[in-house]
């Protein structure tokens, strides 16, 4: 009995690791924007939703604002009737994300330079609401299937290869192929981002802005360009997260709620650290699954995943306010 329980625990942990990778993916977008502009972007999750919605919309050839057009003009349009290949659609969505980044910078945050961080935070909540309504109006709010050819379902190979570990009740570890792909994509994405930040000219400029706005400005770095760049990068990361979550559970409103899960991830890892976002994501992913498995489901009536991450972050913050890898917070009068 005991070894089986233990193996189930390991399986839960592995699944938690995979979920954690996805949380980390969303958290990464937060860190990028926060480091470069000091904006805590609540809209990150909605950006993921918006990216995924747009991707599905373009792939299926939906008419944007079809619902609105039909209501105003009394027409009945819904699809263009073509199907765009996945790769091309992703490129198009990336263009849309850059456009979005430019709009956000140009219409919102350019006017809020020098405001208190908390005002900026509330502005991003407004942005999140706006984009949620806008995305739904553009592509309507039905739950959509996103299929760009990522393999799905449990991996038989891993199941068979590991089934010898346990007794008769144990059939090997069940791990979704999609989650393996997601983890690989996340790892690649992190490597690319780190390489971009370390070795390219724009990446260096980005780090300079993150260090000190005024000093960066004085050596001739354009702040508004860097901010658009950073928002675009965050948009790409959001798109990747949106694709992964969308492929897993359909493109729907609850996608934007994963952003909320990314908040405790950030608090654990520290707002300014990319490794922190990843480690935090893994801790939260494993922690909430294991807690649910060991304590939540047997003793507390289940569904503890809703709040475990927040409580963990809350308790953690009381002892270490800057997070695991965050810079020490120094306050002066």
């Amino acid at each position, binding site marked *: 009995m005991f070894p089986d329980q233990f193996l189930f625990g390991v399986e839960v942990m592995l699944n938690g690791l995979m979920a954690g990778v996805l949380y980390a993916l969303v958290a990464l977008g937060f860190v990028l924007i926060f480091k470069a502009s000091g904006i805590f972007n609540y809209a990150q999750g909605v950006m993921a939703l918006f990216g995924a919605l747009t991707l599905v919309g373009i792939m299926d050839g939906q008419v944007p604002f079809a619902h609105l057009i039909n209501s105003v003009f009394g027409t009945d349009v819904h699809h263009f009737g073509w199907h765009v290949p996945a790769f091309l659609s992703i490129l198009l969505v990336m263009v849309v994300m850059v456009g979005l980044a430019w709009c956000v910078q140009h219409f*919102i945050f350019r006017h809020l330079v020098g405001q208190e961080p908390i005002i900026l935070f509330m502005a991003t909540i*407004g942005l999140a609401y706006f984009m949620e309504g806008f995305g739904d109006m553009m592509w309507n709010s039905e739950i959509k299937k996103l299929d760009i050819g990522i393999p799905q379902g449990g991996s038989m190979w891993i199941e068979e290869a590991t089934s010898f570990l346990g007794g008769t009740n144990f059939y090997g570890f069940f791990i979704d192929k999609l989650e393996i792909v997601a983890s690989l994509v996340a790892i690649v994405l992190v490597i690319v981002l780190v390489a971009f930040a370390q070795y390219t000219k724009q990446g260096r400029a980005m780090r300079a802005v993150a260090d000190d706005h005024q000093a960066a400005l004085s050596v001739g770095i354009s702040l508004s360009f860097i901010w658009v760049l950073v928002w675009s990068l965050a948009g790409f990361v959001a798109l990747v997260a949106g694709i992964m979550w969308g492929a897993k559970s359909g493109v729907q409103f609850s996608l934007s709620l994963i952003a909320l899960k990314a908040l405790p991830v950030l608090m654990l890892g520290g707002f300014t650290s990319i490794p922190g976002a990843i480690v935090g994501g893994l801790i939260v992913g494993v922690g909430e699954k294991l807690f649910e498995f060991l304590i939540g489901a047997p003793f507390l009536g289940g*569904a503890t995943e809703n709040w475990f991450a927040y409580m963990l972050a809350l308790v953690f913050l009381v002892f270490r306010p800057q997070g695991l890898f965050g810079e020490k917070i120094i306050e002066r009068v």
Partner: protein
Amino acid sequence: MFYRESGDFSETYPADSQTFPIKFDRYRYYAVLVVAFLIIPFIINDYWANAILVPFLIYAIAAIGLNILVGYCGQVSLGTGGFMAVGAYACYKLMTTFPDVSIMFHILISGGITAAVVTLFGLPSLRIKGFYLAVATLAAQFFLVWLFNRVAWFYNYSASGQINAPDRTVFGHLVTGPNTDAWAKYMICLVFLTFAGIVARNLTRGSLGRKWSAIRDMDIAAEIIGVNPLSAKLSAFAISGFFIGISGALFFSVYLGAVEVGEAFGIQKSFLVLFMIIIGGLGSVFGSFAGAAFMVLLPVLLKNVLVGGLGWDTALAAHLEFVIVGALIIIFLIAEPHGLAQLWRVAKEKLRLWPFPH
């Protein structure tokens, strides 16, 4: 011409430091009270009570509570929905456990219980600040909703997991339950709102309010000039929690009557109240009223115009509402960070000089 201070002399200190030192403001305030207490109850009907006035009054109490915390003391909270749920469930337990005690006391005690819970969740504010704290209050939001969903004791082991308000009376008039008259619902909310407004207004302009403002503007500096951050922050959490608890209790017992916690007190409610105070005006009691009125009226108006007038789909109107609310938040933060309250102040300044601007 009409709004002026000339000839309005304060001869004593109390006269100078009263809430409305200008005579015109004072009479306007009395006029509003007279209309609210003596005229509206006689002309109110069910539609106006349920769609506009009762939610407005209840949300205004919540907004005053949150404004004390966010607007005056600078501690951002995203847990309002969960805290309202504490008020609602406390009220339900009290109503069913002590059926003979007046519901007025139940609502006040629910406020007190909520204050205790909010203070508990406010403890981390001594260590963490800004949006770190905002995220910490999210912990309260999700934890409390889960708690009321899962622990059957809170909903008296009812099969549906819902809580239903039993019939209760004040001075022989039914105020809760499905058979309540519109005016009775309106009056009980109005009484609590008036109480909350007067208390909040006087607290915020007294020494406690000055301490809160000092903490908001810079807590380290405030500490140096002798404000105790522990007592100032926790008192803001407690008083804010008291009002939010009252509004949650009223929201459940008087307005909805039956509540399912995830639906009525989810994270959306937290944002709704936060939007009220951003649009209405951070750090202003009048702003809480204005913001609550705005956010209650906007969906009703949009629904009447778009669905009723233009014949649009309700889903589409709901999406458009999201777009408009989001855009308004951003526009207000950019153009007028002090919200409708500041517009009101500017209008009053203009009126003082009108029609001779020089």
